[in-house]
């Protein structure tokens, strides 16, 4: 290694340029090769006509986007409810002492059951079962049952996320709050939950990506949202392109959200925590 004074090189570092070039060529070979294989497959012309049909795509897209508004409604309503119910369940589960045993058991059983049942079954049971009871107006909007079902299912997951967050806050924070005369609930509300929520925002958003996609399951109880609409379009045109269009819509909406989550998660790892929890956050596992 010479240490003599050298004129600073102009332009980009040749080594960086070289590795970028290698990356580029390697990417072109891999994806280009895959593309070439698909396009030259014996059945490609038929596949292209029935899955990637431009005319059908352009015809279907406006209607699909209109139907997607229903998905957004389902998602937004369920998300707000999930945030509330999930927190209530998590707090119920953390209440101490023998008096609150029934409350803890209720919360436990709830999260067990709703994480065990496939979401689509909950949607079915509620969507067809509740109107069947005859207690509500049979013309009640099916979307409401969809929102209810999604809320019940996702609250079970989200409560576990909240619980992990609450348990990650060091007990000394509660000791400090209680030593000042705050009740347990006050300590939770003003000291523990605000810190816990900040820590679990990335995993919370992760669950919301799942919720956003699962809104299509509500189509099974007769709600015409984007997936149901694409089925109708597909049946009308004898073509699968509308499904591909749905996939594209979800990619466009979800991928940016996924990257926001990754960015937030990276930032919270990098962010200096003045007093990290002595015990690593436990993820609820049963």
């Amino acid at each position, binding site marked *: 290694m010479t240490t003599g004074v050298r004129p600073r090189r102009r332009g980009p570092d040749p080594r960086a340029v070289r590795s970028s070039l290698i990356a580029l060529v390697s990417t072109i070979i891999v994806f280009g090769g895959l593309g070439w294989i698909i396009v030259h497959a014996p059945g490609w012309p038929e596949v292209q006509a029935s899955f990637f049909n431009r005319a059908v795509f352009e015809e279907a897209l406006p209607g699909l986007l209109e139907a997607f508004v229903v998905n957004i409604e389902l998602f937004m309503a369920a998300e707000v409810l999930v945030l509330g119910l999930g927190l209530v369940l998590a707090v119920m589960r953390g209440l101490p002492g023998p008096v609150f045993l029934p409350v803890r058991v209720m919360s436990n059983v709830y999260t067990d059951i709703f994480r065990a049942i496939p979401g689509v079954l909950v949607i079915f049971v509620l969507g067809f079962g509740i109107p069947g009871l005859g207690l509500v107006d049979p013309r009640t909007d099916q979307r409401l049952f969809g929102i209810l079902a999604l809320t019940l299912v996702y609250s079970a997951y989200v409560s576990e996320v909240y619980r992990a967050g609450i348990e990650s806050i060091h007990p*000394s*924070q509660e*000791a*400090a*709050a*209680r*030593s*000042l*005369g*705050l*009740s347990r609930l*006050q300590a939770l509300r*003003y*000291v523990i939950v*605000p*810190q816990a929520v*900040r820590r679990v925002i990335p995993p919370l958003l992760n669950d919301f990506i799942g919720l956003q996609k699962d809104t299509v399951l509500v189509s099974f109880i007769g709600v015409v949202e984007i997936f149901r609409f694409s089925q109708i379009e597909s049946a009308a045109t004898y073509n699968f392109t509308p499904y591909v269009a749905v996939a594209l819509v979800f990619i466009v909406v979800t991928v940016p959200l996924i990257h926001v989550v990754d960015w937030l998660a990276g930032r919270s790892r990098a962010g*200096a925590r*003045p*007093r990290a929890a002595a015990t690593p956050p436990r993820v609820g596992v049963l």
Partner: protein
Amino acid sequence: MSAVEASPVAAEALRIEGLHKSFGTLEVLRGIDLVVAEHEVVCLIGASGSGKSTLLRCINLLETIDAGRIVVEGEEITADGVSLDRVRRRIGIVFQAFNLFPHMSVLENVTLAPHKVLKTPRREADADATELLARFGLSDKRDELPDRLSGGQQQRVAIVRALAMKPDILLLDEVTSALDPELVAEVLNVIRELAAAGMTMVIATHEMGFARDIADRVCFLDAGTICEAGPPDQILNEPREPRTRQFLQRIIEAGRL
């Protein structure tokens, strides 16, 4: 036991009788008797694990006790049916690791309990807190988050936070042990000022020089009992108990006295 009793003329702030506390099979406190008079400063010294912190945590009921009784200003706080939250308002505690609330500004840390527990109106609580912060040289830190402060400043904020509840007794649990050496003095000076103002305090500390300075009485804890108690000069210079002597010998060897 006469050394443990406070002088009979002063009013009693705190009386502890036969206090026992175990964690599982580990008996941490094995019969503590201690009386603290109003305006008295008692320093607890002893090796790590001798029970100093546990004793303090028992006094404000952060730990449940197994046997014995604790009486604060004439009221038995270990009796059945006593509201923990009400007891803790009257007994402040400051921890070794500060335990400030990291998501709140200094002002919010100090006003949370007065506002939510004592129901002091927001404006009044803010004014009281601002005055207290000024008194301890923290005015310019009022709106900072705790992690922007030095350890010494954080610990002073923690003391102010405890004082904002106007406690009858202040418990200090090795409040300088987590500090860099050059930050210790600023915290000890705050405690000196409180002692001068007549605050009743029970202080667990490893700072023997400070204990000698400030304490009316020093109690040496060993294996969960108060082995020896008396005026600081007697305990630190002419300890009667062999175990006290051994402990102080180790402190001297470590260059801490």
